[in-house]
């Protein structure tokens, strides 16, 4: 990435949405509990294809990396995740509907 040709620096700024802030919070909390390190977060990001950096947003890459690290450290299994994600998909079609607390 560093050194590649690219256009002007974009100047738009967006407010972080709640789901993005939650991804950030989950990273900070899970790493503070010793489930992975910032190096672990970065390692998975570095392993991603250049395409991922073009097609996924910033926090999409982060949640993918957080997930990979948590599975590797044995906090939950891929099966547990898959089951929960399909349950969530059935709750509704927007983030608000699918979040329950």
């Amino acid at each position, binding site marked *: *990435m560093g050194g*590649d040709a690219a256009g002007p620096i974009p100047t*738009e700024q967006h407010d972080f949405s709640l789901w993005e802030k939650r991804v950030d919070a989950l990273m900070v909390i*899970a790493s503070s509990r010793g489930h992975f*390190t910032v190096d672990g977060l*970065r390692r998975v990001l570095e392993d991603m294809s250049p395409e991922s950096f073009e097609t996924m947003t*910033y926090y999409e890459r982060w*949640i993918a990396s957080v*997930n990979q690290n948590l599975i590797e450290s044995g906090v939950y299994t891929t099966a547990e995740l898959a089951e929960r994600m399909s349950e969530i998909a059935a709750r509704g079609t927007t983030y608000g509907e699918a979040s329950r607390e």
Partner: protein
Amino acid sequence: MPHDHHDHLSPSGHPYRPDDDHPLTYWQQMEIAIREILIEKGVTTAAEINAQIDTMDARSPANGATVIARAWTDPAFHAALLDDASAASASMGFDIGPLKLIAVENTQDVHNVIVCTLCSCYPRNLLGLPPDWYKSRAYRSRTVKEPRKVLAEFGVTLPDHVTVRVHDSTADMRYIVVPARPDGTDNWSADRLAKLVTRDSMIGTGLPKDPGTIAQPLPSG
């Protein structure tokens, strides 16, 4: 929309990314799933996640500005900051945790700029979350290749004799730029000086504000 937590959405008026308006995405499903599983397994709690978001929201470049202004006015702190910026900023209540923070100082001959070519590593304890442009592909790829052109886009044009040093941050090593103290501020208090220190001046893509733009304090007594 029973759970959209408007209290956590920033009121600054920037447009929301389409994520908020679009149908639930795969990655949002994943975030919800991970959050729920971590809560159920006792790794964290909903309250702790909310508190972490509040902490994040409370951090801003004003933190960094107080650190820089103190370095400009307190020689012992200036030396401590350049020696070990993690410890010096923690002593002011801005703890960076286990990460290493390095302060790089601008002088008449050297201008420092920070970037994270991979992603977005940033001195969040002092500046809050990075701006979008800092995370952009354009900034990350071009700053290490043509820093003077990038700086010019930010309105910073440096004389040819000034050396530009680009610092590429890593996961556990972050940088903060100590801008040069503007001329004409000799008797200024740290509080007043802090008003000159912008976010971009601590990234290196900007310079401190012109002292003439800061109003004189009212005479006391």
